């Protein structure tokens, strides 16, 4: 069980996981992460690749205490919806923090981390997590 990590999928998603590549609609300017082939707002099919900003703020958060099987060794951990500086929201783990310090509106920045692995001998999937910005 646990097909969250496979070689083709992990390879295919490098641009999003490693480089935060999104796409901006050439017609209406709406930004999509991950990139799409048609704009849900104006139906345009022309996009320009962009890179998401690495800072944002907490839109909502929770602490996962009953994880799914592939995250059982990480529990408990914080997960948040982050509103980035350009208004795009992403789901990300919030790490290196005291759970009591988490609040809606607090500033965070994205960092590069290991996300999960395909068993002890399989490949490791890396990607973004976020940490609180010290004020």
């Amino acid at each position: 069980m646990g097909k969250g990590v496979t070689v083709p999928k992990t390879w295919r998603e490098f641009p999003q996981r490693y480089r935060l590549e999104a796409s901006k609609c050439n017609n209406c300017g709406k930004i999509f992460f991950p990139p799409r082939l048609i704009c849900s707002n104006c139906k345009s099919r022309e996009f320009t690749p962009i890179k998401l900003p690495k800072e944002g703020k907490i839109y909502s958060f929770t602490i996962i205490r009953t994880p799914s099987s592939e995250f059982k060794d990480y529990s408990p951990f914080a997960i948040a919806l982050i509103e980035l500086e350009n208004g795009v929201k992403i789901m990300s783990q919030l790490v290196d923090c005291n759970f009591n310090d988490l609040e809606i509106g607090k500033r965070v920045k994205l960092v590069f981390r290991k996300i999960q692995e395909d068993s002890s001998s399989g490949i490791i999937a890396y990607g973004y997590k976020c940490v609180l910005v010290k004020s």
Partner: protein
Amino acid sequence: MRDVAIIGVGITKFGELWEKSLRDIFVESALQAIDNCGVKKIDAMYIGNFSGGLFVGQEHLGSLLADYLGCVSVPATRVEAACASGALALKQAFLEVASGFSDIILVSGVEKMTDVDTGEATFGLAAAADREYEAFHGVTFPGLYALIARRHMFEYGTTREQLAKVAVKNHKNGAKNPHAQFPFEVTLEQVLNSTLIADPLRLLDCSPISDGAASVIICPLERAKEFTNKPVKIIGVGHATDTIALADRENITTLRATVEAGKQAYKMAGVKPEDIDLAEVHDCFTIAEICAIEDLGFANKGEGGKAVEEGLTDIDGKIPVNPSGGLKSKGHPVGATGIAQIVEVVTQLRGEAGERQVKNAKIGLTHNLGGSGGSVIVHILEAM
């Protein structure tokens, strides 16, 4: 389109049914529904099932279940929309009868979830979210609803106690439901002190992992009296989608698919929220019921928690919500839930709900939601 009526219902006990298989519970509920109206032959079957593949390693349920019901050669269609699979099966069967293509259709919902452990069930359930951009990061279903709950509390001042009161109310109703997985009452203190699952949601805010099946038989309204003297007409159907990922929604405290499906169903039925005598809504988590009663128009946006607190949704309140005990107390065998809601409303509209009967129930609504609101189907039923 022809008018369509529900003429027979059947439902198994919900719970950890380790002694029974997926096919066993399906057949048990289907035979009850068949016996309930005495149909001799069914023209087609629709089965709502979320993930036979991940929970029991079995797909191709149409063939399997037609076979075990003794109906080899009957066309059987398995329908999937996560936790809304059951209601979607009914919608598709409704269209097939309304169009004149078939007359007598068996519509079932079934899910067998306790053959795997909690971690694997949680992985399976996460298939209803965005696997690549939500579940990949470790968020679970309680986690997604916890994000909604925290934002709802932040924007509207909804309180932890108001969330807990949804569970207290639903368990009070479910205590009177012999099919319920947890047919007992819980106190506010028990909910508030139960184990944290995904802050701020606790164990008693969450519907359980369950096995169960439910079935109904539908036919053209003009033929209903051949089989029953208490037909229930399907007067409204609404179905809408929203983005699968919460991150792609401008606002996560309103479930747009609920608003849209509700509007469609009210319009088709020619009724307003205040005309509804009872509702079975999708309370997979306590916050989900608060969002649902707001988005269906039973309470103003942001005032769902207050409405629950003031008893508006109690069984003797202005709009009784989840007289069955809801997913919270009755159990949530994912694919079966949408049909179980229909079974409850039909039972109420027939005046056969016993101790949990809502007085003078003529028009009832069901709200079945998939994932974190990516799919919603609303049905409105009327006693004939």
